[in-house]
């Protein structure tokens, strides 16, 4: 929408690498063709997604204002930028930052773009990217050109291709790393960008690099392909390689990555990635998007078969000199300090320095140097703060700043003797908050603020928790201070709620006939060991009561834990039944029926709606039979989890399946009160009455959740494994959540 958009190519002539410039010119042409109606909207949607230009909430042109659904009548009328996506509606531009590495020029440019095209804020994501919100689609070529002029491409930031390649932000300076993975992450980025073998995926593909197995930083366990640095001796020479894993992923149902190879030499890293990509492109699901991630392919084939296919594919690859050239080029780069190392000055630091130093500093393996973390509340930073950060980085280091998956920045190679001054400079612009990586440093996805898929306000909740926890942070028991909280606005896990101590993801429930925003409480996940284990869903609690959940659980943990016991072990030892019992009262409706405090979400005064459509009001109803039966189905999911915890694997799987059958029956009964208990009949009627009519249908996940039930029904009689039971329990929970949503959307209650 900027009047100056037509000037961008001319103003930046000679500053943009030719290949990047050509790409952007092509996109600009496609934009013009779409405006002229000469490019189909679906095609344009995929093309803009592949350049990181995303939609945002309300871009279908409708928004509930709290009383009714408003139509947004944009000047461009019915012109769209994708299916049900209005041309003029604000969007989001994702900016890839491979390995999180940023130069000062890049930071300055992002600051400028945030001011001129966005709302003044640059947001750091859980995959080390930036996001700018409220962007007009017509501004995106100019934005891309300005980024290209400082060496950033937005190509494949979104869409069915290779997304940002993340890497440990301490790579190269970490005391525990096996070796610096930075050059390999960079080589991987350069090799895969636009590669023909990654253009035909059914879904996104996310690689990650980690320098060690024991810490969190690379999170390889939850990535499509993960590389963990390792070495071995060959003929008396230490050889670098990677433990390589595939098929991890969060999403609605989290999967642990499986071991592909315990040692892939560095020169094989790129061809193996290429071989995996080819197998994924060839055999991965393309029609059913809810099963199109590589994790499902690995699960369905089994890792043995997958490994065999990759090995066979590897043999067919034509030699590509870039496999080694890119690695050698990248290895040639070495970071260094700009100032001599030293020791912390003996004199007292500025006020607040000691508190900040306790949580925000990490000694480097290079003597005399430290990594300083800049903690960003909710991952947000202003243009002025970015410029101030640039000044700090320029003064004290040599462009050695990286974004992190905890939505912060780390400044590497800071001489210890510069720390007090550096802190003062950061603090002066609001970048000196202590508590990095601690309980106050909450990770959250954008949620209902801007994401079309958001169910509950993850950022609203995070802001409230951050405020309350910050007020109390210096009173915390050390064990509580070190806990991690992560929040996702929905089941898609962009907030990574599975890999933390206290995780929350948005769900919807009905209370008294009204839709109420809730969060499912997920406890005892593991951040360490590359996101080693996933948390367990316990119970859904109204959004406005989550601060009480945090308060209660942390208090119980302090009171009940054994010496040195982690929260993960505490949660496991306590067990799901007890944990649920601790929170059960918080799930009940308010005692006073006039209390409407639960019916809006954090930071949003509007009456909560699901999908921004108004919900029906039912006067006089108590609890409907459907709600009774859905509650019973949800209880069965819980029982399935308990069975699994007790080692009753087959029972767990069967119970999870039956919970879905019973959930389906609850809905079928609304239309056919005489439905039998026969699963075949239930599923047949569920399919006809709900699936085929798209009543049981998520606006963005489509028929994904119903397919969980259909798939499970097909596999009845097959023995369960621990993994398959666990996945089925997660799927059953999501099915029940979806059944609630379906029921809410129907707006129908029946008085008991």
């Amino acid at each position: 929408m900027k009047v100056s958009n037509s000037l961008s190519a001319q103003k930046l002539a000679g500053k943009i690498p030719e290949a990047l410039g050509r790409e952007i010119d092509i996109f600009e042409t496609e934009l013009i063709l779409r405006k002229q109606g000469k490019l189909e909207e679906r095609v344009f949607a995929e093309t803009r997604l592949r350049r990181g230009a995303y939609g945002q909430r309300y871009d279908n042109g409708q928004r509930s204002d709290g009383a009714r659904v408003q139509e947004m009548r944009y000047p461009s009328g019915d012109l769209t930028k994708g299916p049900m996506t209005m041309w003029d509606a604000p969007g989001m531009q994702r900016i890839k930052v491979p390995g999180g590495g940023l130069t000062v020029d890049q930071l300055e440019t992002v600051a400028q773009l945030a001011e001129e095209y966005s709302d003044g804020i640059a947001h750091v994501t859980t995959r080390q990217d930036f996001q700018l919100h409220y962007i007009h689609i017509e501004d995106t070529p100019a934005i891309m050109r300005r980024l290209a002029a400082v060496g950033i491409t937005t190509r494949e930031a979104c869409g069915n291709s290779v997304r940002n390649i993340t890497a440990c932000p301490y790579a190269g300076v970490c005391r525990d790393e096996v070796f610096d993975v930075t050059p390999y992450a960079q080589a991987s980025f350069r090799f895969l960008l636009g590669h023909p073998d990654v253009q035909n995926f059914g879904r996104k593909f996310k690689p990650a690099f980690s320098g060690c197995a024991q810490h969190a930083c690379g999170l390889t366990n939850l990535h499509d392909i993960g590389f963990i640095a390792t070495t071995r001796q060959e003929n008396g020479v230490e050889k670098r390689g990677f433990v390589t894993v595939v098929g991890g992923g969060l999403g609605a149902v989290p999967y642990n990555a499986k071991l592909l190879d315990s040692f892939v030499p560095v020169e094989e890293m790129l061809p193996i990635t290429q071989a995996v990509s080819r197998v994924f492109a060839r055999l991965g699901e393309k029609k059913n998007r809810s099963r199109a991630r590589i994790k499902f392919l690995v699960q369905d084939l089994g890792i043995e078969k997958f490994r065999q296919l990759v090995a066979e594919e590897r043999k067919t690859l034509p030699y590509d000199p870039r496999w080694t050239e890119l690695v050698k080029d990248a290895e040639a780069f070495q970071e260094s300090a700009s100032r001599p190392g030293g020791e912390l000055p003996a004199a007292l630091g500025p006020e607040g320095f000691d508190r900040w130093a306790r949580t925000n500093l990490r000694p480097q393996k290079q003597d005399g140097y430290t990594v300083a973390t800049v903690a960003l509340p909710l991952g947000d930073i202003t243009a002025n703060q970015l410029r101030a950060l640039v000044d700090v980085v320029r003064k004290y280091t040599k462009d050695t700043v990286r974004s992190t998956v905890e939505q912060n920045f780390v400044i590497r190679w800071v001489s210890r003797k510069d720390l007090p001054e550096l802190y003062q400079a950061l603090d002066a612009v609001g970048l000196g908050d202590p508590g990095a990586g601690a309980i106050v440093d909450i990770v959250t996805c954008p949620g209902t603020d801007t994401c079309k898929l958001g169910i509950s306000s993850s950022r609203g909740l995070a802001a409230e928790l951050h405020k309350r926890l910050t007020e109390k942070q210096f009173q915390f028991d050390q064990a509580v201070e070190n806990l991690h909280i992560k929040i996702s606005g929905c089941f898609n896990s962009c907030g990574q709620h599975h890999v933390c101590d206290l995780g929350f993801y948005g769900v919807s429930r009905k209370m008294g006939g009204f839709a109420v925003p809730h969060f499912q409480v997920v406890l005892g996940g593991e951040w360490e060991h590359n996101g080693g284990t996933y948390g367990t869903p316990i119970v859904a609690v109204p959004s406005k009561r989550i601060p009480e959940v945090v308060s209660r659980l942390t208090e119980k943990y302090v009171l009940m834990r054994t010496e040195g016991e982690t929260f993960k072990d505490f949660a496991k030892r306590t067990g799901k039944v007890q944990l649920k019992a601790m929170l059960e009262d918080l799930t009940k409706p308010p005692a006073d029926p006039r209390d409407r405090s639960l019916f809006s979400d954090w930071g949003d005064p509007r009456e909560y709606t699901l999908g921004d459509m108004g919900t029906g009001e039912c006067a006089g109803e108590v609890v409907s039979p459907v709600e009774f039966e859905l509650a019973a189905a949800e209880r069965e999911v819980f029982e399935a989890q308990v069975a699994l915890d007790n080692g009753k694997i087959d029972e767990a799987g069967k119970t999870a399946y039956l919970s879905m059958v019973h959930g389906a029956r609850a809905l079928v009964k609304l239309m056919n009160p005489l439905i039998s208990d026969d699963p075949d009949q239930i599923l047949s009627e569920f399919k006809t009455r709900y699936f085929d009519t798209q009543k049981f249908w998520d606006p963005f996940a489509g028929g994904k959740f119903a397919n969980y039930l259909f798939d499970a029904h097909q596999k009845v009689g097959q023995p369960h494994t621990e993994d398959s039971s666990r996945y089925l329990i997660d799927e059953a929970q999501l099915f029940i959540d979806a059944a609630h949503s379906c029921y809410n959307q129907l707006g129908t209650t029946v008085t008991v």
Partner: protein
Amino acid sequence: MDFQHLNVKLFVDGTEAALEPLVPIFHRWIQNKPLEELLLDVADYRHVYDGPGVILIGHQANYSLDNTDGRLGILYNRKAGFEGTNQDRLQQATRAALVAEQKLETEEKVPGIHFPGKEIQLVINDRFIAPNTLETRAAFEPELKSFGDKLFGAGNYSAVYESDPRKRFGVTLTASRPVSAQELLANLSS
């Protein structure tokens, strides 16, 4: 030079406490449509230090109670182009900011927000059109004089330009005496 995408910030008396009630107020404005622009959403950045505060996102423009540089002010950010002359654009953006300010001051629940009519900041939010250089300043100065004389009266204000070349081109006008929003609007209409 065509100076588009004007940002006008009216510096106000008040504290960050004024930000919280703005969230429901801006949501209500989306519902009631009291402003010319198509209003779309509310963005809450109260958690950000010296940040954009609370923003009412519109299609043609955003309105906000902005706290950049630790100075609270009602900010009008014109995003869409505006036809006419530079004077038309300066007046349109200033008028929109003043109208929004008046509406906010009448809102009961906004504690202590008051525009004393002393300082107004003008920024051109487009570095392609108006890089922060001496050339831009030379082209802008006659426009500013015409506009400032109309708004405050000749000789009744001073102007200080943004000196940091990394920041956007802008100028802060300081009136020699406080002028009410009503009077400024009347001056713009005369």
